[in-house]
Structures are given as structure tokens and as C-alpha cells.
């Protein structure tokens, strides 16, 4: 079942087609990556999904029904890229306040915050003020306030920026366990290595349109270029072969591109015949980073102002 469906969503600003006909489906319980270069329209898209903006046209289906911001925001947790908290407010009070705005009762909010604070070792923070926290600490607090009310859909915009590796791992584990417990996570970023590690499904957005949509493994498969890596001792001297081209050679490691009519088995056979001592042989799939760059490359690096009419 899809927890969120977006159909041909559009939002134009005065000088910008920020979101220009995006459609996507997000399955329940998955971790979903929303990728795109700066200014691709990610934040605008997320703001429509969270009910902050109204779309110009198109449809948002949340949980099988037409998205109704007033009611549905209680089931959404949104952590915007630009973090924000009341600096002068005590941390405990602030977490309770934000939770109650999401519709939790006071007692419920208190109990949930206590558990989360324990889990993330933040108990001693309760009576401190936000201005006393470091950037990473307030990031953690922000994460807690986002997921506190057990939302069905959690939207995280660059959740790891400003976190050290230890705390980043801590948050990452929490994201996994939230997904395991049935929440759906939308994860917006332009850090590809994190996406590969965390997400199972991605949408790539550029210039307000989605240009790529699918499971990571499938996407990688569809962008593969039949490149294999082989490490071996006693490699034969490489002449021209009708089986493969050598892309790169480095101290017992070959990067080969297969020709159209050859299979990996043919290659292995060839090297075995040549008496090479093979250590490893595997297919090299393109990284998301490479796919990303390939798809986005050639379009202007910054979005240009355009006339909307």
C-alpha cells in the first residue's frame, strides 16, 4: 500500500516553476530518498506534502485519502533543512510544546519525550535552554521533536548535516528502527553515499520534474555499462581482445568493459586459460553519484530564473 501518492503536482512562483508536474508513489514502511541538485524543487515539494504550501494543481493522496492538511499533519513529522527552535525556551518545555501542537496530550507528550531523551542520552538537557546547546545537540533535539508523535510519515531534510559520525550513526539506527516499526521515511538529500546506504527507493528531481524513479538496485542495473573488475596475479599482457576492452589497469587489477556478444563466463574462461591466478571477479555497478551526475550534468548548475505564464 502506498502511504503517499503524488499526482502531477505543480507549484509555480513568480519567477520559477519550482515544481512542474511531479508524480511519485511512496510505499508504506520503506525509506525513500528524494534526491536532486540545489534548487531542484525538493523543499517546495516537501512543503506541499507537509501542508505548508498549497499546490497550484495536481493531487496529493495521503493514506488512501485526499490529503487534508488540517487533519493529516498529526501523522506527519517534518524536519526542515533549516533547523529552528525557540532559543530562549527550556528544552523539555519546548519538546512538549511542539508535541502538543501535533495533537498529543500533555501527559502523553511528557512520557514520550522522557523515553526518547533516555534513548538518546539527553535526560540532563531537560531544563537547559536551546541557546546552551551545540549545533549537533540541537540537531538531535530537532530529530526527537520530529518523530515524537509517532508519525506515519517522517520527512527528513538533510538529517545528518552537522552531526559527527557517532551521532549520525545513532540517528541512522533510529531511522532504521522507525521504518521497521511501520513508519515511512522520506529522506531528502544530495549526499549520495547516505542514500545508497539507507534508502531502498529513490526519486531524482531536477528542474521541478522527476527524472528518475525506482528501487536503487533496479536503477543501478538499468544504468550498468557491463563493466567488471578483476584482480589476479600472473595477468597476461593485454593485447586487443574481441571479448572486452580494458578501461583501466592498475597493479593486478583490471577494469574491463565487455563487448556486446561476450558474457562474464567467457571472460573468466579466457583468463583461466591464460593461467592467471584470479582473486576476485565482480560486476561494477555505477554508483548513484555517477548516475546523478550523468543525469544532471549538462543542465545549468544553478537554476535560472524563468518566466512563468
Amino acid at each position, binding site marked *: 500500500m502506498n502511504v503517499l501518492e503524488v499526482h502531477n503536482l505543480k507549484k509555480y512562483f*513568480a519567477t520559477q516553476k519550482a515544481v512542474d508536474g511531479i508524480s511519485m508513489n511512496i510505499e508504506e514502511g520503506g525509506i525513500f530518498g528524494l534526491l536532486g541538485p540545489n534548487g531542484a524543487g525538493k523543499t517546495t515539494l516537501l*512543503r506541499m506534502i*507537509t*501542508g*505548508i504550501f498549497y499546490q497550484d494543481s495536481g493531487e496529493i493522496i495521503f493514506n488512501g485519502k485526499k490529503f487534508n*492538511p*488540517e487533519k493529516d*499533519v498529526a501523522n*506527519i513529522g*517534518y*524536519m*526542515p533543512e*533549516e*533547523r*529552528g*527552535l*525557540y*532559543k*530562549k*525556551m527550556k528544552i523539555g518545555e519546548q519538546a512538549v*510544546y*511542539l508535541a*502538543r*501542537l*501535533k495533537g498529543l496530550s500533555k501527559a502523553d507528550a511528557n512520557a514520550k519525550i522522557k523515553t526518547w531523551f533516555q534513548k538518546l542520552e539527553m535526560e540532563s538537557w531537560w531544563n537547559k535552554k536551546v541557546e546552551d546547546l551545540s549545533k549537533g545537540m540541537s540537531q538531535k533535539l*530537532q530529530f526527537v*521533536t520530529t518523530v515524537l508523535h509517532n508519525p506515519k510519515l517522517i520527512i527528513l531534510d538533510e538529517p545528518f548535516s552537522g552531526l559527527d559520525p557517532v551521532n549520525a550513526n545513532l540517528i541512522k539506527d533510529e531511522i532504521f528502527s522507525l521504518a521497521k516499526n511501520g513508519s515511512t521515511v522520506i529522506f531528502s538529500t544530495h549526499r549520495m553515499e547516505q542514500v545508497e546506504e539507507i534508502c531502498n527507493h529513490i526519486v531524482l528531481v531536477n528542474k521541478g520534474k522527476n527524472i528518475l524513479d525506482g528501487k536503487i538496485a533496479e536503477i543501478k542495473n538499468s544504468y550498468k555499462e557491463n563493466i567488471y573488475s578483476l584482480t589476479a596475479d600472473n595477468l597476461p599482457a593485454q593485447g586487443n581482445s574481441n571479448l572486452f576492452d580494458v578501461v583501466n589497469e592498475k597493479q593486478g587489477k583490471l577494469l574491463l568493459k565487455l563487448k556486446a556478444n561476450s558474457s562474464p563466463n567467457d571472460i573468466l574462461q579466457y583468463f583461466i586459460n591464460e593461467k592467471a591466478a584470479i582473486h576476485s571477479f565482480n560486476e561494477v555497478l555505477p554508483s548513484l553519484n555517477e548516475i546523478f551526475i550523468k543525469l544532471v550534468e549538462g543542465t545549468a548548475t544553478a537554476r535560472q530564473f524563468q518566466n512563468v505564464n
Partner: protein
Amino acid sequence: MNKILLILKREYLTRVKKKSFVFTTILFPALYMALIFGTGYLSSSVQKMNIAIVDSSGYFGDSLLAKINANDSTILFTPVKDTSIKSHFRKAGYDGYIIIPPIDWQTGRKNIKFITDKTHGAGTESMIENKLNIIWSEVVNEKLGIDNEKKTVLNTSNISIKEENQENKNANSAVSSTIGYVCGFLIYFILLIYGSQVMMGVMEEKTNRIAEVVVSSVKPFQLMLGKIIGISLVALTQFFIWIACIFLVYTVGKMMGSESAVASAIVAGIQKSFASVNLPLILGCFAFYFMGGFFFYSSLYAAIGSAINEDVREAQSLSFPITLLIIFAIFMMSVAIRDPNGPIAVWGSIIPFTSPIVMMARLPFGVPGTVPAWQLILSMALLVIGFLCTTWLAAKIYRTGILMYGKKPTWKEMLKWALRK
């Protein structure tokens, strides 16, 4: 609705718990009193002067000068015979000198020169003139043969008038003016002080980037309304404390009344002022115009706050036109108090931009004596319509502005935000 309640509770509590709230609540009346009594004291303490009088008319004799000096010594007239005083009056200890030329007693004389070495104000000039005229009238009286008995008649026999409004026999224009002034000024201060608090609060949420988090839970309109209502309640709390203090002084004064003359004077004063006006009407209208005016202006301040970025100077330059309107209202108020039936007073108290202040200044003069019922009803209705309009407009600007970073928007852009669907 529940969410607005949560927001206003936070806005209210964080402000009331602040030390600065306690401070201003106590300090404001103290400063206000200091201002009133302080200026009174300063204006009453006039510098003493010593002026040499060189008389060549023969009328300003030593005995007359001595007599007048005995009555009032702030300006001392010292008879001097030697005209060489001209060159060294400062050294001789005089602030200036007057050489009185020969005068015809029937016509008097204009523009007698008062020579000094620094310029004194018009006030000093007229004081010296008055004092000289007291002496001169003695001279003239004597010439005309008016004795002391006739003089007393001349001085005491006169006619005075007192206004009585047939619609409202109790009306007392002095008390009405005072109450009008106090009400108008209170609303003026509240609009300026708490209006800018609304603006700063919105700015804080925007620059802290908490706004985006909050508007993903509540509608921007709810956030804005919660803030405005919360802050208006802070202002009301402050009022309540002040009124409670006055009441406390009143009751304590009443109990001590028999023993202390000062206390009983205060009690009598309060009783007298309140007896001459329709107190429930004034208080009710005050609450109405305070709330109406506050919503009217603070929603505009909220819109401004949402449109600007961190820069305080931007805030000042964008909010200046609104502040100017409030200051304009206080000018209209001072006209309205002098002439509560004049066209400026009437129109000023009907148009919502100025009505909270101007109408409050007119109301103590009496309804329906000075303010006909239709004017009051029209003014209230227009204020309600006015604040609905400004809140609606502000909400639209706010909705866009609160998430808009970057350059300062122009008035034209803000108007566009407001008029967009």
C-alpha cells in the same frame, strides 16, 4: 482552535514570566508619575534674577520697589541711581538693567529696553513686564484718585461662566479631559510597545527558522492569531495589575482617610473624578477599543515582521509608516480633547486608523452628550470591519513572508502577496 490556545498560552507565559515584564509593570507607573511631577517641579522652579532699575521717570520710587519685592522675590528689582551701572552690571551682581525713561502716565510707554548680556525666554520677559505693570497700575490708580476700597472692587468684581450640558448635568470638562488623555495615551503606548513586540516575536520565529517547523503543525494564520491574542493578554494583564493597584491605593486611602489628610484628598479626588463620568461605559469601551485597536495595528506589525529578515533597520524602515499613523492619532487626540465636537474629533473617532485613540479621548465627555450614539456605534462597527480586513490582509502577507528569505520585499511585492488568492 485548540492549537491557537496552545500557541497563545506559550506566548503569554514566556512573556509574563520574564523579569522584564515585572520590571516594566512596576516601572512604567513610577516613570509616568515621575514625568508628571518632575516636569511640574522643573517648570515651577524658576531661576532667581536681580535686575537694576535706573529710574528717570520719577514713578518707580524705592519704597514701591521694596513693596513689590516683598510680595514676590523671584525677580528682584533693585533701585540704582548711578547710570554707570551700564558698563559693569554683571560685575555688580545684576542679570540686567532697565532704564526707565520719562513716561506720560495717561498713555504709558511701549518697548522700554531691558538690557542683558544673554537672551532670556519670552516667559522671563513677560514676568518682568507683569511686575513692572503692577507698580505702574499703582501709579495710575493714584493719579486717577482710586483709593484702596475702589481698588478692591475693581479687582474682585468680575463675571465667570461654567458650562452645563443639559444632557449630562454631571459633566466636568476638566475631569473628562484628564480621563480622555489618560485613556488615549494608554492605548497609544500599548499599540506602540506591544505592537512592536508582536513584530519582534514574528521576526524571531522567522530568523530562528522555527516558523517552518511550527507551520508544518498549524496553519500560519493560527500561529499569527495565537501570537497576537497572547500578547494582547499580556498587555491586559499589565492593565489589570495597574487597575488593581489604583483600587488598592483607593481602599487603603479610604481606611486611613480619617487620619491622613493626603490620603483622604486622594480618595476624594478619585471619587470626584469617577462620579462625573460614566465609569462602566468608559471601562467597557476602553476594553473594546484597546482590543480592536490592538488587533488592527498588531496584525499589520505581524505582517511587517514576517516580511523582513534579521536586520533591525529593515524592521524600523518598514514599520515606520504604521508607527506614523499611531503618532498621527495622538496628535488628533490632542485636538479632539480641546474641541470634542469639532470635525477632526468626529472623523478621527470614526475612522478605524485613529478611532481607538481619538474616540477614547472623546468618550469621557459623555454619551450621548458629546458623542452621539450613532457615532459610537458606527465607530465600533468600522473598527471591527477594519481589524477583520487588516488581519485578513496581514495573514496573507504573513503566510508568504514567514518562509521567504533573502532580500527585503518592497511594498509592491507585499501588496501582491496580500492580494494573491
